[in-house]
């Protein structure tokens, strides 16, 4: 896997003595450091370079999060079946550079990879929400605006997050990654409250479209390691990418995963079609002119996003979930950002509410094997 090396470290004034900044300065002694004023990012025009998004990824900014950390997952768009998931972001932007990544549009005018220094505030917020509602089960992920683990060897956030969740019975933390950076997890005891999940595509897609990520073999080796260390696993076949050999590619990928890890300790598997706004397609075309992901039979759907046309998408879902059921019959499965009609065609039923999907994914018997 590509090791992240920032071109510059920017520290907002007042944040220079925070634990995470001190850790990073020790670990990257040769990277130039600059103190910047509050809101520097907002006042700084987007770089005029050929690819400002790529340049921004290498400019590491430490700042405070001044808005609430805990948010409902934005995937719960009206009209689509939702799984009642929550997200928190200690990092905004990603050191990796997948050709299909939505951050290319979402953070297009963002000149940095931003790390929030106030993890203590995040933990306070989480404690307040989770402890105030002992009757509810929370699934909370950190992989919305960044990879959950790619920068963990540098930032060390998992050392704060894992013990926090390990101490609570009504919340699960999901660390979603395309990396193999799991060394920071191995000495911690997750007490069944942490799911480490991998986004999986066939190796030929990883090698050509998921730039700077761990290879398929590296991800699988890391999954085996964390499973042995007591973590539950998750797998996300999301985005599902339609390409000429998709059937062979996905079948082989599923076989290799479930012949390597123990399916009984997999908390969930999700599937989700590649989806892109028109603006994202334009950004992808500009940044990755040789990509093959735009060449599938994708059409504009009701929510404005482009997906593989429905009949083919349903065929892909049915085929892949069929193989998943064979390989891991007891593992709960769900779809991300799909209509009730597609749920019905693939799973034969539509959940009555987002809470029903969430309940299936947090049942104690499923997470406490």
């Amino acid at each position, binding site marked *: 896997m590509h090791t992240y090396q920032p071109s510059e470290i920017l520290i907002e004034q007042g944040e220079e003595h925070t634990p995470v900044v001190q850790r990073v300065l020790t670990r990257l002694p040769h990277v130039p450091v600059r103190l910047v004023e509050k809101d520097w990012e907002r006042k700084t025009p987007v770089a005029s370079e050929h690819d400002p998004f790529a340049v921004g990824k290498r400019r590491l900014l430490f700042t405070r999060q001044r808005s609430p950390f805990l948010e409902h997952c934005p995937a719960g768009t009206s009209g689509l079946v939702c799984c009642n998931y929550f997200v928190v972001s200690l990092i905004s932007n990603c050191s990796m550079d997948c050709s299909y990544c939505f951050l290319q549009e979402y953070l297009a005018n963002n000149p940095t990879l931003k790390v929030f220094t106030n993890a203590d505030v995040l933990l306070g917020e989480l404690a307040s929400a989770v402890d105030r509602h002992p009757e509810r089960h929370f699934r909370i992920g950190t992989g919305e605006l960044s990879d959950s683990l790619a920068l963990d060897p540098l930032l060390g956030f998992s050392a704060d997050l894992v013990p926090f969740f390990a101490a609570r019975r009504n919340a699960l933390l999901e660390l979603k990654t395309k990396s193999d950076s799991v060394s920071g997890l191995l000495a911690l005891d997750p007490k069944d409250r942490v799911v480490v999940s991998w986004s999986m595509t066939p190796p030929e897609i990883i090698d050509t479209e998921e730039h700077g990520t761990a290879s398929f073999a590296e991800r699988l080796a890391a999954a085996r390691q964390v499973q042995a260390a007591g973590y539950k696993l998750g797998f996300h076949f999301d985005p599902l990418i339609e390409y*000429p050999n998709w059937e062979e590619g996905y079948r082989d990928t599923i076989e290799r995963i479930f012949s390597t890890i123990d399916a009984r300790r997999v908390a969930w598997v999700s599937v989700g079609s590649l989806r892109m706004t028109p603006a994202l397609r334009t950004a992808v*075309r500009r940044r990755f002119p040789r990509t093959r992901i735009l060449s599938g039979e994708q*059409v504009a759907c009701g929510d404005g996003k482009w997906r593989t046309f*429905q*009949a083919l998408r349903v065929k892909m879902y049915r085929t892949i979930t069929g193989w998943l059921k064979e390989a891991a019959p007891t593992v709960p499965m769900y779809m991300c950002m799909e209509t009730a009609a597609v749920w019905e065609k693939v799973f034969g039923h539509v959940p009555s509410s987002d809470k029903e999907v969430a309940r299936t994914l947090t049942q104690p018997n499923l997470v406490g094997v």
Partner: protein
Amino acid sequence: MSLLHEHIVTYAQEKRLSPQTLARWQAWSEEDQAALLVVVRVLQLGDNHLRDFLDWLEEITTRDGGTTRELLTRAEISQPLQNALSRNDKLKAVKEALRRLRYPRLSRLEEEVRAGVKALDLGNRIQLSFPPMLEGEEITVEIKARNLQELIDNLSRVQHRVADGSLLRLFALFDEV
């Protein structure tokens, strides 16, 4: 400046193409640029249509291999350009041919649906319509009637197609690729 470059720049000025569209076109090999110039001159493509052509041509060649020049000289693309058709009809024919190449399975499915509807033989007072790109699950059935008897006759035609299973097969087509 080469003659080809000059022609393309002149065309871009005439049609007020955006710098981004022009840059994409000029990033191609000279053979591909020239082949597209022939097509755009006949079809008088403006910025929006040209962008669609660039997207589709790049996406097809990326997926299926070959060059844009080879694609544009295929009979289904080149023939309508030479036929005695209006500019709009030529554009429609070429875009449809390109769309079939860009979306081979979706186009096939759409043709099967059209053939399925035709085979129902419901007459011209009963209209079946499908969501665009077959994205969705609903078929709209529209029945026109001037009097009660006509309505009963038309409903009976539909009922007959329900009973013989041909409407069920049409719904099933939504899921078949």
